[in-house]
């Protein structure tokens, strides 16, 4: 194992020491079905105008500066 791999292995161990695994044996504290029904009955929220403005801005940037597309995709 080279020094680089040792460093990666060490940071991996530190992360495992810092965050406890949650594991698979969990269940919700309440019956979620009533909340599910309320969610299904709720009217879908309309998209705010500024979301459309942001989308238009992104399309404009992508059209004017195609080289910026990878940068945009990175931050998505």
């Amino acid at each position, binding site marked *: 194992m080279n020094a680089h791999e040792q*460093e*990666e292995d*060490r*940071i*991996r*161990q*530190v*992360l*495992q*020491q*810092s*965050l*406890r*695994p*949650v*594991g*698979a*044996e*969990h*269940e*919700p*504290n*309440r019956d*979620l*079905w009533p*909340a*599910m029904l309320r*969610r*299904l009955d709720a009217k879908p929220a309309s998209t705010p105008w500024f979301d459309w403005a942001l989308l238009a801005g992104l399309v404009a940037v992508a059209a004017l500066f195609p080289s910026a597309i990878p940068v945009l995709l990175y931050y998505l």
Partner: protein
Amino acid sequence: MATGVKADWDEKELRRDLFAFHRGDMDAFEALFRRHQRALYSWILRIVRNPATAEDLTIETFWRIHQAHARFDPARGFEGWARHIATHVALDWMRSRKTERERTAELADDFAAPALADAAVSAEIRQKTAAAFERLPPKLRIAAVLAVVEGQPHKVVAEALGISVAAVKVRVFRALRLLRKDLEQQGIRP
């Protein structure tokens, strides 16, 4: 013998529910909800690490599942498809929370402290590591938390994220590298 017959019956019932759900049947949706809510809740909890948030996101996941019933392919099974949707719901939440976290500088991880800690890693380093991990980009953090912390196979993580196994390995590698850099900037050399 009786167990085998019951398993066959369960399998037939599940297949019937899957096809009925695909057609938009509400009873079939409820049956799938009750059958899979625990597994999806656990999966989301592994990512967001907060029970109340995991409950909300489980509901959001099933809402998206319900909205997408016509696109569901019963032949490909429900579990993997649902887990893929749940993972993206959790990822959306992590992205939306990033701005909020930057405002409040909160660290809400209900599973931050390990039960048994390595004496060589001090409590301060563990705390700073957990905080630095929260600062990673969401798409790197989600790959690292599932693969490194939860020990999920790369193939399972790849399917859940809709990317290749090689891409999962790259994201985990980048997450660990950024984490190390962040800690080094704080004067910590793990």
